[in-house]
C-alpha cells in the first residue's frame, strides 16, 4: 500500500510576497473593514452584557447551584442516606441526620450544608442520590458574596431555591 503524500507548495518566494507590503496592506484592509462596520453600527458587535443580560446558549443540563427537591406535599425528599456526602470529591456536603416521624421515610436531614467555595460543581452528588432529592438545575451560575460564611448554604436556602424556568 503506497503512502499517500500531498505536496504542499512553498509560499513566500515570489516578488510580491518578499516585498511584505502587499500582504501587510491586505491584512490591514481586513482589520479596517471590521473596525468600520463595528464603529458605524455597534449592534454588529457579537457580545452580551453579561451579568445583566442572560447567556442564551446555556442548556438545561448545565450545572448551577444546588437545590433540594420536595414531595408534592412540600415535605423534603432527602432521606439523609449520606450518599452525596460520601461521593463528594471535595467533601463539601455536611449532613446532620434526624429521625423522621411523618411516615414518608425513616430519616431526614436536620441540617444540610454545602460549602460552595469548596464545591467543584461536578454533579456527582446529583448522580449518587437514590431519591432525586438534590439537583443542580437552579440556573444560578455566578454567586458573589462579601464573606466566606455567605457561601455556605444551609437546608432552608437549598429548599427555597427553585428550578430555573425554561
Amino acid at each position, binding site marked *: 500500500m503506497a503512502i499517500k503524500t500531498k505536496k504542499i507548495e512553498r509560499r513566500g518566494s515570489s516578488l510580491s510576497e518578499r516585498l511584505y507590503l502587499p500582504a501587510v496592506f491586505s491584512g490591514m484592509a481586513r482589520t479596517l473593514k471590521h473596525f468600520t462596520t463595528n464603529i458605524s453600527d*455597534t449592534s454588529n458587535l457579537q457580545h452580551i452584557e453579561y451579568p445583566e443580560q442572560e447567556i442564551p446558549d446555556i442548556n438545561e443540563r448545565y450545572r448551577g447551584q444546588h437545590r433540594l427537591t420536595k414531595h408534592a406535599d412540600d415535605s423534603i425528599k432527602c432521606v439523609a442516606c449520606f450518599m452525596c456526602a460520601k461521593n463528594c470529591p471535595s467533601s463539601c456536603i455536611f449532613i446532620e441526620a434526624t429521625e423522621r416521624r411523618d411516615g414518608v421515610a425513616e430519616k431526614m436531614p436536620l441540617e444540610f450544608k454545602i460549602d460552595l467555595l469548596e464545591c467543584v460543581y461536578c454533579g456527582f452528588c446529583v448522580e449518587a442520590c437514590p431519591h432525586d432529592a438534590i439537583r443542580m438545575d437552579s440556573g444560578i451560575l455566578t454567586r458573589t458574596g462579601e464573606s466566606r460564611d455567605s457561601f455556605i448554604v444551609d437546608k432552608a436556602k437549598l429548599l427555597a431555591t427553585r428550578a430555573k424556568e425554561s
Partner: protein
Amino acid sequence: MEIAIVIIRIVIALAFALSLIPFMVFLERKVAGFIQDRPGPNRCNINGVRVSGLVQSLADAVKLIFKEDFISTHIENRKVFILAPAVLFVMSMLTLSVMPFADNIILGDKSYRMQAIPFDMGILWYLGFAALSVYGVILAGWASANKFSLLGAVRASAQSISYEIAMGLAVVSMVISYQSVDLNQMVQIQSGTFFGIVPNWGVLIQPLACIIFIVTAFAETNRTPFDLAEGESEIVAGYHTEYSSMRFALFFMAEYVAMVVASALIITLFFGGYNLPYISTELMHESSSLILFAIAILLPLGGFSFMKWIEKNNVTRYKSKNDFRIRENAIFKKAIIGIVAIVEIVVAITLLGGVSFFEAQIVTAIVQILIFSMKTIAMLFVFVWVRWTLPRFRYDQLQKLGWARLLPLGFLNVIISAIIVAM
C-alpha cells in the same frame, strides 16, 4: 509679550503630548476591541457617565499611582534604576519640543515660531534625542540586574541602532528634496504644488522615503511589529519587568509620547504638517473670515451627526427601568450643544467686529493646531491599527529587514534624489 508667547507655546506642546496619553490608551483599547469584534472597555464610570471608556484611562492612572513603588533588594544600582524611566520620558518630551504645530506668528515686526523650543534645525534635534532615548531603555535593563531585562535592553538598543541608519537616510533624502533642515520650512514648502495640480506632499515626491521612514519610526518607538524589546512570550516584559507603580507608568507614557512624536514627525515630513493641501498660511490669513464662516456652518452639522451617531450606537442591550445610557446620552447632547453654541457665539462676534490682521493670525494658528492634531491622531490610529493587525517579527528577520532591505533602499533613494535635485 515675549514671555507670554514663550509660555503659550510651551503649554500647547506639553498639553498636546500629555492630553494625548490617556486618549491613546483609550484609542488603543477601543480600536483593538472593534477590530476584534468586541466593545472594549465599557464598564468604568463616574456616576453612570463612561465617555465611551475614556474613564478607564483615569482608573488606570489612579491604580498606578496608588500601587506600591517597589524596588527589589537585589538591585544594586538604585540611582540608575530610579533615573532610567525619567531619562526615557524626558527624552521623549524633548523630541516633541521642536514640532511646529502652527506657522510663525508675526507680532509687530517680529516673527515667532510656534514650537516649544524655537530651534531651526528641528529634524537634527529629533534624530539626536530619539537616539538618546535608547539610553533610558539600556539603563533600565542594566540596572534591573536580571537576564530578561538585560536581554530586552540589548534587543532594544541593537534594534534602534540598526533602524536609525535607515531612518537617517530617509531623512537625508527628504532634506535633499526640501533643501532645508527646518521643520517649519518643510511644511511651508509642502503647501505648494508641483506640475501645477499635485500637492507638494513628501509622500508624493518621495514615496520610498516615506515607507522607509514609517517602518523605521515603528521600530524606533518599539511598537508592534518591532516590539521585541518587550516580547512578553519570550522575556517576560523586557526592560521594565522590575518596575512597578508610577515608574512603570513613566515607561508606558514615554512609549506613547514617543508614538505621538513619531506621528507628528511623519505628518510634518510627508503629509503636509499643519497645512491642508493647496492652502498656504498666507491664503489662510487673507481668507480668515471665509474660514470662520465655513466653521460656523460645518460645526453644527458635525455636532448633529455626532449626536445621531451616539443615539444610534450607545444603547443598552437589555431591558432596564433605570437605563444609565439614556441619562448619559442626554448629558452628551447637552455638552455638544453647549460647545457648538459657545464656538458659534465666538465666531459670530469675531465676524461681526471685522477680522483684523492680529485676529486673522490667531484664527489661522488655532485652525492649524486643529489640523495638526487631527492629522497626528489619524497617524496614531495607523500605529494602533498596525499593532492589532501584524504579528511580531522574529529577531533575525528584524535585523535582515533593517540591514539588508531598508539600508540599501535608503542609499538608493538618497542617490536618486540627489541626482534629480542636482539636475
